[in-house]
């Protein structure tokens, strides 16, 4: 940014902001930004951070039962990454003037959301594979464009996350492949998991463009770079050949290549189910939040002890 706005009014600041966006430059924490831009970012980054830490639960459900030591190590490392990604994202949100504690309060009290996908249960070991392949795959499709998001700290956090996440999807795919090529029971387990996770994964891209509340403004601000439907289509096109290689079937009778469009057509998504889960009526909404809240509450005495120790021992407190 070259324009100096030192003595100018709000209009001049806004002009600087608009010029930076137009030039595809990044907005940085101490730059002036419209209140709505800030609020919109906080909402999106917080939801993303919450999704990472709530998303630990369905997979952590299988750490104790992982069927080989190699798989156990991979799964532990993956769930650990999710905690780390939550940390990166809460830090990005903090650059906007919102503390992690405020955001956690909002998560715990239901005032902020996390991705609905994590309200589905992990019923079998194959679900760990399906989450890696489909859920992380959908997340990556969503996240790669966010590496170019107009807000610098968020974009940089996403670069780090995307880099680290590349193994998440691969381990899921490899896990499913081992099952698909394994015994009959293992193959059936893999197919069942894909049957259950396919549609919720498609819902991860959000409502169709014509029904998406925040999309247009987010695109104008370059927080978002592609529309929900565009990303969803991209994901379907990527998954179809991958499913074939896996030897598994995607549970959609309408799924077929459309020569004219150069894309796969696919069947209608059950948006009523999406809405229900979003409203809190998914299979695990209550369980996820109460586990999260319990961990936070039961950890309070630990956090207080460390703070008291620091105060006693004269550590510099920020």
């Amino acid at each position: 940014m070259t324009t100096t706005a030192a003595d100018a009014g709000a209009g001049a600041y806004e002009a600087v902001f608009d010029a930076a966006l137009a030039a595809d430059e990044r907005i940085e924490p101490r730059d002036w930004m419209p209140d709505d831009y800030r609020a919109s970012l906080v909402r999106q980054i917080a939801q993303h951070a919450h999704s990472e830490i709530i998303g630990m639960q369905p997979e952590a459900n299988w750490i104790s039962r992982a069927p080989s030591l190699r798989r156990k190590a991979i799964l532990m490392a993956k769930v650990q990454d999710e905690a780390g990604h939550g940390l990166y994202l809460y830090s990005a949100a903090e650059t906007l003037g919102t503390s992690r504690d405020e955001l956690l309060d909002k998560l715990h009290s239901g005032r902020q959301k996390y991705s609905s996908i994590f309200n589905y249960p992990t019923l079998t070991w194959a679900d760990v594979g399906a989450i890696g392949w489909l859920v992380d795959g959908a997340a990556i499709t969503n996240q790669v464009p966010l590496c170019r998001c107009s807000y610098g700290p968020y974009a940089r956090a996403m670069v780090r996350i995307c880099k680290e996440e590349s193994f998440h999807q691969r381990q899921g795919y490899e896990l499913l492949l081992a099952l698909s090529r394994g015994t009959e029971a293992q193959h059936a387990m893999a197919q069942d998991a894909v049957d259950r996770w396919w549609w919720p994964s498609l819902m991860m891209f959000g409502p169709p463009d014509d029904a998406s509340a925040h999309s247009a403004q987010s695109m104008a601000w370059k927080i978002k770079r592609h529309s929900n439907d565009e990303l969803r289509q991209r994901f379907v096109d990527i998954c179809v050949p991958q499913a074939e290689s896996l030897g598994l079937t995607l549970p959609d009778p309408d799924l077929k290549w459309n020569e004219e469009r150069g894309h796969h057509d696919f069947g209608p998504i059950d948006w009523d189910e999406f809405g229900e889960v979003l409203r809190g009526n998914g299979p695990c909404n209550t369980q996820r939040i109460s586990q999260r809240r319990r961990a936070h509450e039961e950890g309070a005495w630990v956090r207080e002890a460390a703070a008291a120790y620091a105060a006693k021992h004269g550590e510099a407190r920020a």
Partner: protein
Amino acid sequence: MSGEGNGAWPLWEVFVRGRRGLAHTHAGSLHAPDAEMALRNARDLYTRRSEGVSLWVVPSASITASSPDEKDPFFEPAADKPYRHPTFYEIPEGVRHL
């Protein structure tokens, strides 16, 4: 303010030396009760894939930023928070779609 009291931990900025011969570079931030724990948390979080050989941690509140293009009144109500800090993560090479 929610950053203080009741067991809430202050924010720290983390700087990582990727390898010998390079300067420490800002890697991100984290919460910790004190400097010793901040160092350890930083080691766990920012170098768990062998990204560094040396770490610095600095209380975020100790950083003074120069921002010639800005005027503080425009930052209300967030200006009294210690959470504003500049550049976050290095953009590593080799990440596609950048």
